[in-house]
């Protein structure tokens, strides 16, 4: 399949559903090494994004992503708001006014989104942040596309890589964000932001797979 504006909206809706469904879980993860607000932040932000989309009905995927980015920026706050806000704003850049996204375009978009998060948050892989889910996801997507995998299978492989990346944050010691205050005590807990990043990419695989 190819991703049209409606499909992009569908992704955001699925993301909102899963953020609401996983709110407690994200809260628990953020309680352990943060300030217990990541679940509330993400569900508030994505619900607001869905509302805004249904009011505006943007015409192409890039406009959907921009709208979501703006909403997250203005509704979420915390570290998550600007980081996911930048992520969505940057997703829009490489794809211009395309009506439909194929695997190649999504690959470019996701790479741009992840680089946007890196640029804003200055986190490196291994710092125990959302980068640890996003980076493997974009790499897996690129490999899959290079191997000529179907869009569905490429999305699935990217979501699986994000999941593994999120899991792999457990033993890490945080070096960025609030969890870094804990020093060694941050090890042994999964990073909430990496977890929500996995949920996002899993929702994309579901929406478009």
């Amino acid at each position, binding site marked *: 399949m190819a991703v049209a504006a409606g499909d992009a909206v569908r992704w955001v809706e699925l993301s909102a559903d899963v953020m609401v469904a996983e*709110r407690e879980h994200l*809260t628990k993860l953020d*309680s352990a*090494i*943060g*300030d*217990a*607000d990541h*679940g*509330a*932040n993400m569900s*508030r932000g994505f619900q607001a994004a869905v509302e805004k989309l249904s009011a505006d009905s943007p015409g192409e995927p890039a406009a959907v992503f921009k709208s979501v980015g703006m909403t997250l*920026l*203005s*509704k*979420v*706050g*915390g*570290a*998550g*708001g*600007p*980081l996911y806000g930048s992520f969505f704003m940057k997703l829009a850049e490489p794809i211009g006014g395309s009506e439909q996204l194929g695997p190649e375009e999504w690959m470019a978009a996701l790479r741009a989104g992840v680089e946007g998060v890196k640029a*804003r*948050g200055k986190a490196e892989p291994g710092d125990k942040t959302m980068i640890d889910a996003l980076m493997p996801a974009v790499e897996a997507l690129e490999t899959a596309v290079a191997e000529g995998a179907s869009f569905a299978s490429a999305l699935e492989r990217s979501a699986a890589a994000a999941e593994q990346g999120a899991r792999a944050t457990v033993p890490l*010691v945080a*070096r*960025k*964000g*609030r969890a*870094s*205050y*804990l*020093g060694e*005590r941050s090890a042994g807990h999964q990073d909430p932001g990496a977890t929500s990043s996995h949920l996002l990419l899993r929702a994309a695989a579901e929406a478009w797979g």
Partner: protein
Amino acid sequence: MKKLINAPESVVSEALAGMAAAHGDQVKVIEPNVVVRVDAPRQGKVGLISGGGSGHEPMHGGFVGPGMLDAACPGAVFSSPTPDQMLEATKAVDGGVGVLQIVKNYTGDVLNFEMAEDLAEGEGIEVESVLIDDDVAVEDSTYTAGRRGVGGTVLAEKIVGAAAEEGRPLGEVAELCRKVNAEVRSMGLALTSCVVPHAGEPTFELGEGEVEIGIGIHGEPGRKRSELRPVDEILPMLVEPILRDLPFGSGDRVIAFVNGMGGTPLIELYIVYRRLVQLLDEAGIQIARNLVGPFITSLEMAGCSITLLRADDELIRLWDAPVNTPALRWGA
């Protein structure tokens, strides 16, 4: 969870409505959730704005008024506010000579204020930002997000607010804020966790005989747990790291601030202050001014923090200057 609220979603907006109703002579609340000095903007005066997650009341909204902040942006509980709030705050207080953002050093606050600075400059308003990072419990290294901004923020907002009120230019006001930040250090402890309304249960668990040393103001766990002992024995665990860090020395004068985290009664804060006086006395440090009470809280968390600001005549004069806000008031 036992709270006098209606729903976690409405905590901030309803509290702001109550605050506006209670302090209408000092502040107004404008969209989207910005607490603004009632007579803003003041032409020719540098605007002073700050902000951060809610749940730390009276900070920052309670510090809006003559002699302190011009506006405050409250985020959701423990979540940094958003750039559009800060932009509206900036526009509302801009008196034509620029706006200073006082930002506590947390990733979320820093990122959001950075974006707000870009937006405001896009609108032609000159903006400077100063980070407050006074918490000695956090190592300032490439392995952390840097030190957190805690109690020093209250002292900075008061002192810098007095300077802005005097009509000093933006560059000077920002420089003074950096100086305060350079001379202030804090450290806190918790006896109990707070309960974030959305979470509904304590962020962390502490045993009956335990105390968490080096706590932040968001229920973030501290650096270590210790046995709860008489306060006279516990206080050195906060004061020594502070004194070692700056380093404060014999003969220094300080503004000493004993802050309650919310759930600790005032009677205990005075017992803490008594011990602080002894410890500073032993170190040859003179307390020129003091502040005792819950000013930068963490919801209902029980505990306290100590903040020491090394102060010269100039800082003390600015500290003494009139202030007229919902939470800090003298000389007016």
